[in-house]
């Protein structure tokens, strides 16, 4: 990709033209190489639904979907995602209609301060698309990249498993918990 060198006072800083489709809308931006996708969304595009918790990939608050896959927006550069399709928490609802997960989070009281919630929601959408979780224990393991400091985990798991139709299932008795192996 070719850099543009911005005119103006020295030292000139190279910027890169990128184009992203964000929540269905095509957006063009000029970014320095070191701008993360998270900072682009929050600081430059005003999409503050996606949260910055740790900024180091450790909490999951910044989870968004890129090309349908959940990733940490804090650990990728905006310029690396040029041409991609991004969905943030602002893009989950269908017009006025909440995403079933959003409604389930409300029904199960699955948030306290709500700070981790956008990341939890995007992560759960990604988890459902991946199709690898079949038991409650697997949902719990595959949601472990999202840390909630209020400890709303039981309600979050209840909300996600309900939308997945797993709510009636207890942990799989054919699959005993083996500490140290993953998922349980």
């Amino acid at each position: 990709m070719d850099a543009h060198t911005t005119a103006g006072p020295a030292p000139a800083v190279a910027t890169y033209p990128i184009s992203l489709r964000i929540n269905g809308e095509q957006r063009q931006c000029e970014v320095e190489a070191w701008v993360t996708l998270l900072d682009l969304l929050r600081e430059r595009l005003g999409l503050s639904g996606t949260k910055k918790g740790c900024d180091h990939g450790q909490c999951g608050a910044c989870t968004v979907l890129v090309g349908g896959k959940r990733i940490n927006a804090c650990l990728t550069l905006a310029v690396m995602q040029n041409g991609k399709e991004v969905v943030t928490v602002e893009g989950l609802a269908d017009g006025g209609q909440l995403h079933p997960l959003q409604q389930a989070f409300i029904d199960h009281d699955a948030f306290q301060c709500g700070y981790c919630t956008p990341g939890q929601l995007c992560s759960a959408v990604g988890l459902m698309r991946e199709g690898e979780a079949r038991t409650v224990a697997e949902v719990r393991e595959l949601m472990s990249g999202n840390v909630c400091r209020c400890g709303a985990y039981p309600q979050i798991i209840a909300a996600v498993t309900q939308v997945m139709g797993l709510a009636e299932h207890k942990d799989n008795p054919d699959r005993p918990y083996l500490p140290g192996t993953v998922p349980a």
Partner: protein
Amino acid sequence: MNPVTFHAPQAHAEALRLAARDGAAYIAGGTNLIDLMKEGVMRPASLVDINSLPLDTIAPTEQGGLLLGATARNADTAYHPLVRSGYPLLSAAILAGASPQIRNMASDGGNLLQRTRCHYFYDIAVPCNKRVPGSGCSAIGGLTRQHAILGASEHCIATHPSDMCVALAALGAVVHASSEQGERRIDFTDFHRLPGANPERDNTLLPGELITAIELPPAGQFAAHSAYLKLRDRASYAFALVSVAAALDIGPDGTVRAARVALGGVAHKPWRVPAAEDALLGKQPASAAFEACAELLLAGARGHGQNDFKIPMARRAVVRALGQAAAGTIDNMHAAPASAGKEPL
């Protein structure tokens, strides 16, 4: 982050040329490099994004093995049908690492090159021989809970943090690398290095050299009897204190025909001791043989105070992982086999 320029070459030769320049670094998933750039630990002048190169395929080799492209994602690798069926140990190890979000970005090549999680390495205010050669090691005499018990030197006691690499070491993988000087293959046991007097060098890759793929030997031998056991401070999403990749080939007479055991979280590289594996050959897969194996694997282990507990923990983890492997593969994705539980797990 430091100011940096960005390149996304479309061709292999251009990537090698760009990477040969001073201060250049490849970037794949970015999950380790961006983290370290934010801390000021790594300060590349230019980034060479290798995601446009055709290096993301996973395909069988003519020898009956499997070739994992360098930019194949950790999640895609772990869930790939050929990895699941032929190398369940690799699947299990990858899924024990990081989080789903990180595994969706992290590449197979980048996983091999992730740097230590030693907290002094991350703290640019304190000495660290790995970060600034010759400055000293702050871990020695400091907080050592996560540090090495094997293969360390007086210059560095850091551990390699990867889970995937522990399974790759046990499976006998080969790294394919490419530079302007040509292509070469590096046996996994020779890929990472012990710290010695040069802990700043994690591995035997040359400057600017590109990992293009990781080759797995023919599948099947260990598919029925393998387990990856990871012990850590919480149940998920934490680096290993100690991990074990155990793989057995059990013959029709019920004795061990071939064995591989590698330890993670204990050294600067995945730890294998051929004599410990040989000690299992021809034996019944049961506790006595497993304990003898563990003893040989941990020979010469030395703690640094806070991590002394890792020595008995690793010994017991080896015995348990071998017991799990003997009982039937734990691939972490399907119901445990009916035979699981017949041995004490």
